[in-house]
């Protein structure tokens, strides 16, 4: 059955149509949804889209920056206030994909995708959903139960800006250069006070079905100086509590073996 398309000029109108429809999806850049349409995916029968300029805005306020969910990876790369996220957006797909792929769509992408979301998770982003006011929800909570949000619309993503730019680190490991998809991705936010790490957040993507936190690594880092001994301890627990998957790129065993190596390189600041 061919898919139906409904267009609205506001996100609110689109949200109402989504909640009324039986099996509809909100269209971002379409890099995943149009694939599904081309494949004849029967799990949804309607695409809902909104031509709402507000969903493509970037606003800096106080210690953070609020990104419209419809902002593309290419726009992230080009935006002055998002330079801390540019190295992340730059490694999503090739140039054409980056002109289309949105930040909002990345939140819903399954392995091996979700590189940008791993960075948002490490930075402790918050999401605002259309039709739900207030402070929005933490990205951790969103990812824990992501399927629940498939029929809703993310309006904005608010990201705290790292006070020390060097505190945010990111590495995407892929086999094909320069573009390949991730074997695994690591994003780490390691703020320090008086030389010690306080409030470490470390996230992986492609180490499970969706981006997740490496809580054992965070515990090993917290309160410590980022020295050789701490890095050894963090690497030793790189996969504690994590069950990586096997896919066409790598087996679970391989992911477990190399995650510690890449984590160690990221923490020592070693370039490959």
């Amino acid at each position, binding site marked *: 059955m061919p898919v*139906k398309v409904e267009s609205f000029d506001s996100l609110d109108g689109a949200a109402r149509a989504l909640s009324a429809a039986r099996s509809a999806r909100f269209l971002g850049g379409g890099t995943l949804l149009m*694939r599904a349409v*081309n494949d004849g995916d029967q799990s949804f029968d309607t695409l809902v*889209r909104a031509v709402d300029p507000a969903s493509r805005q970037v606003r800096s306020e106080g210690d953070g920056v609020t990104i419209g969910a419809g902002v593309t990876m290419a726009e992230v790369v080009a935006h002055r206030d998002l330079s801390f996220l540019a190295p992340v957006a730059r490694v999503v797909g090739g*140039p054409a994909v980056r002109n289309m792929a949105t930040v909002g769509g990345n939140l819903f992408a399954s392995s091996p995708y979700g590189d940008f979301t791993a960075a948002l998770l490490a930075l402790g982003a918050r999401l605002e959903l259309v039709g739900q006011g207030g402070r929005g929800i933490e990205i951790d909570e969103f990812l824990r139960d992501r399927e629940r949000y498939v029929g809703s619309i993310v309006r904005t993503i608010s990201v705290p800006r790292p006070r020390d730019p060097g505190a945010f680190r990111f590495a995407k490991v892929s086999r094909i250069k320069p573009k390949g998809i991730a074997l695994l991705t690591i994003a780490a936010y390691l703020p320090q006070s008086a030389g010690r790490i306080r409030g470490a957040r470390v996230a992986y993507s492609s180490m499970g079905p969706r981006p997740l936190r490496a809580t054992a690594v965070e515990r090993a880092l917290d309160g410590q100086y980022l020295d050789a001994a701490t890095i050894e301890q963090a690497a030793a627990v790189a996969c504690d509590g994590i069950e990586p998957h096997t896919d066409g790129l790598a087996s679970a065993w391989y992911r477990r073996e190399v995650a510690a190596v890449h984590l160690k390189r990221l923490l020592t600041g070693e370039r490959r």
Partner: protein
Amino acid sequence: MARKPLQFHLNGSEKAVFVEDGQNLLDVLRRGVGDLTPKYGCGQGACGTCTVLIDGEPHLSCLTLAETVEGRQITTTAGLAQGADLHPLQKAFMDNFAAQCGYCTPGMLLAAKALLDRNPNPSREDVVEAISGNICRCTGYEPIIDAILEAAKSRGFRQFG
């Protein structure tokens, strides 16, 4: 099924067509308008041979919902040559044997045009990055990279646009 009117500019001339719900831009260009220069490779975003420029920026037409291009400027490989004069990129591709089977060529040309329009003096690394979403199974990429660098150096590029 719903059919919707759609208007856009293709290589500078106005087009008005009807599109079906869910139809992608590649299909509209090939079947609706009859421009066969954008190719269908995978329909999955993986090969890049369907690349077109939308308002000057490369997009994958197979993953672009056709009705989202209302009022926009589309460039395909059919819009590169001016009459009998090949575009400097096309000429450089010929001179450097950058097309073998030719299937990747339309996408490569447009990815390269988007790069050179923005950055007339690219490094080799810039070129590799610009075509990183385009797969070629024949040439091994080196002749394509050489051709794009040569076109950038050729003086004709800017006049051609």
